[in-house]
C-alpha cells in the first residue's frame, strides 16, 4: 500500500511538468499503473521491457554474489592468509563471511556508481528530450560491475559510464536504437583509455595495486599479485589452476565473469524464460571450439613451436577457452543482447558463430588484447544489421523463385 500510493501521488503531482518522465519511470518500475487506456485498444504483454530487464538481472545475481566471495578469496589467497580451495564447489574455505565482506564492501561502491551515474544520465536525457525513461540501463548497470577488475578507480568508472551511455546509446536515440552493447562500450572505453587499470597482473586481486605502492615506498610486506589465466597464457607462463577451479570460478578475473558454472545456470535460466537466444549461445560456443580446435591442430602439426609467442594460447586445449577469461560471460549475457544482436534466426547462427570464432582469434594473435570476446562482440554488433539484411534478402529471393515456379 504505502510505497505504491506514495509513488502514485508523486507522479500525479508532477504530471505535465518537465520532470514527469522521471517520476513515471519510478512509478512503473515495479508496479503497474492504476489507470487504464480508454481510447484505442492497446495490447500489452506481461513481459514488457522492465520485466525482461528484471529477469536478466535475476540471472546475474548469482554471478554478483559469487564475485563478492571470490574477490575476498583471491585477496586472502594471494596474501597468503588462507589456503587454496581443494574440495569442490562448496569448499568451506571459499564461502566464508570474511571473504564475502571484503568483496561486498569493495563491489558495492562500484555497483552504486554504475547505477547512480548511468541512471542519472538516462533520467537527464529523458527530461531534456521529453520522453519516458527507458529501462535499458537496468541490465547495463548490473553488467558493468561484473566485467571490470575489482581495483578499478571509481572516477574512471564514472567517466566510462557517462561515455558509454551517451556515445554508446543516447546519441543513437536511446534504448533499442543503439548499435553497440552499452556495457561493452563502457568496458572498451576503460580498456583503451586506462589500460594499466584493465590488464596486467596487478588489478585483478583486491589490494594488489595498493600493496605494490607500499612496497615501492619501503614496506616489507609480501607483494600481492594475480595474473588472469589469459594473461599468463599470453606470455606462455604456466598456469597452476585446475580445470575444476576454472569451471567453478576460483580464479582471478573481472568481478563476475569467473564462474563458468553460475554463468551456465544463468544461461539456462535465460533460455528457459525465452529471454536469451539459445541459437546465439550455442553457435558462439561452436565458433569458439572450432577456432580453438584449428589452433590445436596447427600446434599438433608442428607449425608453431614453443619458441613462438602465440604458443601459450594456441596450445591451450580448445575447450579450456570456454572456461577462462570472459568468454562464457560474454556469450551468455552480452552476445544475446536483443537490441544489438541479429534479429533473424539464421542471422543469429552466423552472428554467434563469428563471435566465438573471432574471440579466440583475437585472444591468440593479439596478446595485448587478451580479452577477445569483448572486441569480437562489439565487432559483430556492428555487422549484425548487415547479416540480417542479407538473410532477409535471401529469403525474399527464394520465395520469389518459388512463386515464379508455381506460376510458370
Amino acid at each position, binding site marked *: 500500500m504505502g510505497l505504491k500510493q506514495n509513488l502514485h501521488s508523486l507522479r500525479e503531482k508532477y504530471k505535465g511538468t518537465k520532470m514527469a518522465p522521471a517520476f513515471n519511470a519510478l512509478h512503473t518500475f515495479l508496479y503497474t499503473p492504476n489507470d487504464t487506456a480508454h481510447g484505442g485498444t492497446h495490447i500489452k504483454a506481461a513481459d514488457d521491457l522492465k520485466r525482461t530487464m528484471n529477469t536478466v538481472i535475476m540471472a546475474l545475481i548469482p554471478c554478483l554474489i559469487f564475485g563478492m566471495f571470490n574477490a575476498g578469496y583471491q585477496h586472502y589467497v594471494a596474501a597468503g592468509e588462507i589456503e587454496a580451495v581443494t574440495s569442490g564447489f562448496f569448499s568451506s574455505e571459499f564461502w566464508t563471511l570474511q571473504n564475502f565482506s571484503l568483496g561486498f564492501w569493495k563491489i558495492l561502491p562500484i555497483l552504486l556508481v554504475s547505477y547512480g551515474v548511468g541512471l542519472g544520465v538516462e533520467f537527464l536525457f529523458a527530461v531534456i528530450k521529453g520522453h519516458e525513461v527507458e529501462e535499458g540501463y537496468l541490465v547495463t548497470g548490473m553488467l558493468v560491475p561484473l566485467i571490470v577488475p575489482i581495483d578499478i578507480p571509481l572516477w*574512471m568508472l564514472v567517466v566510462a559510464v557517462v561515455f558509454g551511455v551517451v556515445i554508446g546509446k543516447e546519441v543513437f536515440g536511446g534504448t533499442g536504437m543503439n548499435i553497440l552493447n552499452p556495457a561493452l562500450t563502457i568496458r572498451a572505453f576503460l580498456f583503451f583509455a586506462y589500460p594499466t587499470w584493465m590488464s596486467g597482473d596487478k588489478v585483478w586481486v583486491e589490494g594488489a595495486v595498493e600493496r605494490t605502492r607500499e612496497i615501492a615506498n619501503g614496506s616489507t610486506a609480501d607483494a600481492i599479485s594475480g595474473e588472469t589465466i589469459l594473461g599468463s597464457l599470453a606470455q606462455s607462463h604456466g598456469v597452476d589452476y585446475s580445470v575444476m577451479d576454472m569451471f567453478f570460478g576460483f580464479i582471478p578475473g573481472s568481478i563476475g565473469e569467473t564462474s563458468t558454472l553460475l554463468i551456465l545456470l544463468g544461461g539456462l535460466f535465460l533460455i528457459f524464460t525465452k529471454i536469451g537466444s539459445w541459437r546465439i549461445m550455442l553457435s558462439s560456443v561452436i565458433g569458439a571450439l572450432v577456432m580453438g580446435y584449428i589452433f590445436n591442430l596447427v600446434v599438433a602439426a608442428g607449425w608453431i613451436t614453443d619458441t613462438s609467442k602465440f604458443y601459450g594460447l594456441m596450445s591451450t586445449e580448445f575447450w579450456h577457452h570456454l572456461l577462462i577469461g570472459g568468454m562464457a560471460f560474454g556469450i551468455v549475457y552480452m552476445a544475446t543482447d536483443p537490441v544489438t544482436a541479429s534479429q533473424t534466426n539464421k542471422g543469429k547462427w552466423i552472428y554467434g558463430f563469428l563471435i566465438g570464432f573471432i574471440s579466440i582469434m583475437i585472444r591468440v594473435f593479439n596478446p595485448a588484447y587478451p580479452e577477445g570476446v569483448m572486441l569480437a562482440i562489439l565487432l559483430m554488433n556492428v555487422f549484425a544489421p548487415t547479416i540480417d539484411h542479407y538473410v532477409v534478402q535471401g529469403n525474399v529471393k527464394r520465395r520469389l523463385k518459388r512463386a515464379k515456379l508455381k506460376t510458370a
Partner: protein
Amino acid sequence: MGLLSKKDSKLILDPLADNNPITIQVLGICSALAITAQLKPSIVMAISVVFVLSVGNVVISLMRNIIPSKIRIIVQLIVVATLVIIVDQVLKAFAYSLSKELSVFIGLIITNCIIMGRFEAFALANKPWQSFLDGIGNAAGYGLILIIVGFFRELLGSGTLFGFKVLGDSVEKTGLYAIGYENNGFMVLPPMALIVVGLIIWVQRSRNKELIED
C-alpha cells in the same frame, strides 16, 4: 568590417560556422583524425592549409578562363602539388621535427577534399579576390575544428598543451596526478578524434536547429 563588403565578409565568416567544411560538409576528415593528437601539429596543419588553399584559389581563379575544362583536374592537381611541396620544404628547413611528426600528412594535403572542392566549386567561377577570401575562410573553418579537437585531445590524452605539462607531471605525480588522475589513453587514438568531431557536430547542431538535415 569596413574593409570588406557584406558579401565578401560572408565568404570568410560562413565557413567558420554555419557552412564549416568539417562539421557541415564533412570534408577533410582524414587529416582531422590523423594529426590532432596534439595541438602543435594541428596548428601547423591549419596554417599550411590556409596557405595552400588561399594561394591555390587565387592561382586557379586567375587561370579560370584559359583552363580547358577537360583537363582542369590535372591543372588543379599541379597547382596544389606545387604549393604543398613549398610548404613541405619550408617545414623541413625550418621545423624539421614537426615535419617528421606530420610525416605524410603534409603531402596528403593534395588529397584533402576541401582543396579540390573549393577549386571546383568556387575558384573556377569567381574572381581572384573573392576566391582568396573563400580560400582563407574555408581553410580557417577547417583549421578551427582541427585546433579545437587538438586542444581537447592533447589536454585529456597527454595532460599537456603545446608540450607544457598544464595538469602536472604524470610520472612524478604532481598537480592533478597527485590525487589519482590519469591520462585518457583513448584520447590519443584516432577513433577518439572521430568522436570529438562528432561531439562538436552535436553541439553545433543543437545550438542551430536549421543545420539539422533529415
